[in-house]
């Protein structure tokens, strides 16, 4: 991956619809060849941001650069982008071939060049046999492939995906996800991908930008987002079931809650010498059970209230210090409702957030 060169650069972007501020002074750098995922719950402004980059929405303030060129006022077709939509947005009256070549005809490219590019895209996406068909005669997965092809033929630097897999069923989504990742590996284009699906985000992204209320909360690699969330929102948003939080206080080098105390040796502090009310976050899969409890700094007994067997693993819901506490167990583990389970916590895997600013300690 070529680094230190920005493919897409966003400077101080504001977008308002009337009095509603959708994007607030947003800055973002996307590296050349990077797969960036914009992740957030609905209404966080992720699709709006993508539409701004595409030039389909007029920005209220700020600048957008694509390949070092200021495209803030440029037409969508002049920005060097290709876009794939959630509803495929194929032109129903045209054949697949017509759909792929429409943009190229608008660019007034010579016919042999158009044919060459359509053939290449069709080959990459394996839709050669569908070229003469109309979109109405295609399945959902085939349609989305054609939609990707329409972006592919444009020979652009940046691909924009607006929840492209959300209309597909679960099986097909998983298949196309892999194909997309392979496609990126082959093309090495910059891709910006909007989704609300964490699994898509985690699996596809080089970096994930978690958005909330028109702001980017955290922009980092999937690994860091998952293991070292910068604030409580990101920590609770990523992961399913979400992170367990124990409310208590941070005193020196120990976390005190209810009448327990956990020694925090081994916890990597982001900020030193903080104290006061904190949330101690631990993911269900990082809660130790069985023999592993002996490794834990702290252990306690909880009573299982609900069991959710998922096949690959089993989730157990318990209560600890008055809060819901999810535990991920092995799929083979035999637990029953009402049973008492000894669980262990290790501070290395935990995330602490100060109550006052909800940021990582």
């Amino acid at each position: 991956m070529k680094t230190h060169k920005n493919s897409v650069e966003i400077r101080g972007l504001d977008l308002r619809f009337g009095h509603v501020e959708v994007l607030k002074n947003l800055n973002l750098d996307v590296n050349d060849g990077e797969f960036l995922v914009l992740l957030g719950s609905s209404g966080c402004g992720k699709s709006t941001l993508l539409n701004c980059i595409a030039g389909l929405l007029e920005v209220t303030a700020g600048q957008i650069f694509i390949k070092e060129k200021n495209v803030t006022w440029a037409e969508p077709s002049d920005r060097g982008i290709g876009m794939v939509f959630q509803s495929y947005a194929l032109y129903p009256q045209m054949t697949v071939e017509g759909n792929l070549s429409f943009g190229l005809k608008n660019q007034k490219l010579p016919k042999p060049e158009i044919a060459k590019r359509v053939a290449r895209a069709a080959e990459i996406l394996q839709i050669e046999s569908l070229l003469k068909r109309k979109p109405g005669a295609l399945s959902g997965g085939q349609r989305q492939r054609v939609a990707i092809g329409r972006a592919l033929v444009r020979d652009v630097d940046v691909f924009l995906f607006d929840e492209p897999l959300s209309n597909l069923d679960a099986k097909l989504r998983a298949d196309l996800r892999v194909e997309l990742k392979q496609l990126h590996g082959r093309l090495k284009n910059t891709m910006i991908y909007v989704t609300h699906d964490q699994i898509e985000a985690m699996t596809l992204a080089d970096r994930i930008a978690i958005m909330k209320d028109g702001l980017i909360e955290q922009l980092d690699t999937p690994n860091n987002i998952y293991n070292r969330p910068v604030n409580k929102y990101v920590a609770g948003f990523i992961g399913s079931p979400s992170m367990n939080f124990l409310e208590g206080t941070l005193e020196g080098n120990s976390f005190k809650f209810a009448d327990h105390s956990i020694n925090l040796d081994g916890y990597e502090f982001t900020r030193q010498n903080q104290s006061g009310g904190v949330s101690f976050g631990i993911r269900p899969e990082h809660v130790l059970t069985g023999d592993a409890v002996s490794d834990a700094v702290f252990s306690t007994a909880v009573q299982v209230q609900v069991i959710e067997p998922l096949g690959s693993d089993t989730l157990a819901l318990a209560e600890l210090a008055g809060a819901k506490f999810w535990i991920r167990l092995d799929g083979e583990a035999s637990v029953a409702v009402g049973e008492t389970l000894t669980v262990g916590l290790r501070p290395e895997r935990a995330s602490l957030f100060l109550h006052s600013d909800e940021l990582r300690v």
Partner: protein
Amino acid sequence: MDKVNRLEGPAGPRPKKAFSGRNIMLYGTLIMVSLYYLLPLYVMVVTSLKGMPEIRLGNIFSPPMEVTFKPWVKAWSEACTGLNCEGLSRGFWNSVRITVPSVIISIAIASVNGYALANWRFKGADIFFTILIFGAFIPYQVMLYPIVILLREIGLYGGLPGLVIVHSIFGMPILTLLFRNYFSSLPEELFKAARVDGARFWGIYFRIMLPMSLPIFVVAMILQVTGIWNDFLFGVVYTRPEYYPMTVQLNNIVNSVQGVKEYNVNMAATILTGLVPLVIYFVSGKLFVRGIAAGAVKG
């Protein structure tokens, strides 16, 4: 537990009674209503096929003893209005020359209006739209005389072009509303995709929107053809007698006070005048359904 015989008792679809109270109410009402509408038509058709002596016998419901098409021929090419005895044919061609350009012009302009209002949100679009819709509620009588003056000033009063302009303008509010709503209902992402693909205002209109809009064009055409063909008021106000549309001429034939009332000719003339909207309904009704079905395929 006792063994239950599974072969007895209800199985398969529940039987329906043909003469249930609900069915009798429903079909009874439908039959009554269709009779109410069909009876006058029946009387018109029979009367138009009778000679005058037979009509004078007074049995308006009885079928003709001797079928004659003379009244139809007379209504079409011989009936007199004032000094002119060319029958309805002249009015028919006038109406064609009024309806065809009015329908084409009004639909062409209104569809572009609707497209611009739905997809290219320009500044003041909402105000423009509100004013346009407001226009649909202004009674025609209020504008009748001012338009006479306007047409006179631009030298189009009394001829066909003036009437075509009036019809096109008066069709604008409702047609624009129709097209705007239809284009708004098309997926917005299609429009966005076309923009990313480099199509501009007219490119998107002709290459993307038009091919998807057959149903709404058929609906607009039905509305306009029937509306303009059946118009009497504008025709009588804005044209000279030699350009009167068919409806006005029909009125003049039926209401002429001189001579004997030829009921058979009047009936034939009335049916002739109403024939065009009827044909439009029958022909395009099919097209309409097909258009809707074609539009229902998700792209």
